[in-house]
């Protein structure tokens, strides 16, 4: 297979397939969660559950000062690479074009050198996160194969993207194809692993906020 055939394969049928698996899997997972439902709560509420839920969806982006003090590395590195990942995903011009063509919506993007720098920082952040996972007693204790799997999948997407941007893999169709393939692996793996947290974290935060919001506490 030539590099161009590989690129066409990843851009064409594989992309469609990955997108299909992703959409199907993710929605299935989400609906599966919601379908479980919740028991009716008979206790008289103190506060507004829905409002609390919505607030917590946002609030958990800000770490509380105590957690920052206890685990500054987690907070800073975690924040950096998550933001970096999202910036690279949503604000890189080729990605904006891709989203525009797929969903018909578009937004302003960042200059390439900015995304490049953000990506480099994100890669370093991910490496640091891995080292931390291997070194920190709690993280090492908790970590399963799946945790390392999703790290690898995430890292590969970023790495191949960065290498393709810098044209460090030749010829370019191969570089781009590898990046697209990595993204497809990411999409396919997402619904079936804890990568779903990208979406379910907001559901979880909502429930957390609603449970506490009902009791009058902003969690």
């Amino acid at each position, binding site marked *: 297979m*030539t*590099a*161009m*055939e590989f*690129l*066409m394969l990843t*851009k*064409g049928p594989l*992309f*469609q397939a990955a*997108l*299909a*698996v*992703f*959409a*199907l*899997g*993710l*929605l*299935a*997972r*989400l*609906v*599966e*969660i*919601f*379908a*479980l*439902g919740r028991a009716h709560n008979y206790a008289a509420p103190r506060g507004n559950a829905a409002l609390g839920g919505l607030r917590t969806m946002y609030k958990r982006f800000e770490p509380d000062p105590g957690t920052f003090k206890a685990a500054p590395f987690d907070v800073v590195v975690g924040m950096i690479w998550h933001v970096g990942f999202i910036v690279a995903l949503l604000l890189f*011009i*080729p*990605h904006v*074009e*891709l989203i*525009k*063509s*797929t*969903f*018909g919506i578009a937004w302003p*993007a*960042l*200059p*390439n*050198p*900015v995304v490049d720098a953000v990506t480099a920082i994100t890669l370093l952040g991910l490496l640091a996160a891995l080292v931390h996972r291997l070194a920190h007693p709690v993280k090492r204790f908790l970590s399963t194969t799946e945790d390392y799997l999703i790290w690898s999948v995430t890292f590969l997407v970023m790495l191949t993207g960065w290498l393709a941007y810098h*044209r460090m893999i030749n*010829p*370019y*169709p191969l570089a*781009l194809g590898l990046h697209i393939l990595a993204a497809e692996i990411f999409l396919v793996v997402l619904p079936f692993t804890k990568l779903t947290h990208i979406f379910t974290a907001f559901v979880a935060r909502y429930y957390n906020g609603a449970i506490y919001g009902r009791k009058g506490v902003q969690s």
Partner: protein
Amino acid sequence: MATATPQRPQGQSMPTPQPTLGESLRRNGVSRRGFLKLCAATASLMALPPSMAPAIAAALESARRPSVIWLSFQECTGCTESLTRSFSPTVENLILDTISLDYHHTLQAAAGDAAEHAREEAMHANAGQYLVVVDGSLPGPRANPGYSTIAGISNYDMLMETVADAAAVIAVGSCAAFGGLPKADPNPSGAVAVQDLVKDKPVINVSGCPPLPMVITGVLAQYLTFGKLPELDEYNRPLAFFGQSIHDRCYRRPFYDKGLFAETFDDEGAKKGWCLYRLGCKGPMTYNACATMKWNGGVSWPVEAGAPCLGCSEPDFWDAGGFYDALSVPPGNSGDMLLAAGAAGVAVGAGAGLLARSKTKSAAKQHQTVTAAELEQKL
């Protein structure tokens, strides 16, 4: 230039050993300075650094004219048009005068049986030495040969017969090199590229739709000069011309790096000459020499004219997504598929969720009340 193409008199047998290029130049009264100039221009033509000129001079001095047979199959004659519009007639003529273009059914004066006879004769006389240039793709061995024939001979038969005793094959244009437009989806004629059929001879691909004229002559010049095949990339294209991407050599590259893009063909960015990536430029994945050699005698080239690179020198570029869609945009309609898959996901999830829910419900039904009495048994 084309009219200057030499036609060997009919029926004449193989001539006595031809003079070298150096000899024939001197015989024509070309001075040493003229020769130096020719070498400098040839170096430029071959995309070699000027410092290679002495080596070129030494090589050209003893170069002998090779015989060339040019076969045109499923093509639009664009490649020939490109070649005949080369901008530097002097150098061009010298190169083409030096080769012996023994068969080219668009350019040659002979027609019909005489033309075919010329081809057969050249093959016979120069067995193992001649070059075959092909433009156009051809119906593959399993396709209906009737899609393209010349003088009642199928393209496939003619190619295989002609190539049998060739020294090398040069596939000129994206059709010959990769199948091109005829091979584009759904490929009704079963078109294939030359390299799909010729496995036992070196094949040099000079892709492009059409290729830069200088690249065509440059490859010929290289063969003529050094008598050997140039270094090739993974698509068998000469690295000298196809070693770098349009993107890497594009004068608009700084705008890409700064993130300045034209978003429509008439916006401020387009007027200021910003990067055309978002307008579908395939420069990043396209390997060709347009950005430096340019077209029309160095006047301009597509990107300089404000048009995104179509990626015409790459395999299957017709099927590689819309010409005006950004490189990152996949071909096909993902949106509808996404909706369908999403709907299926909702259905699957609802099914799975309801099953799970019924599991909690049946668990609740099977609930055995914990009582103090039974707890007491544990103490």
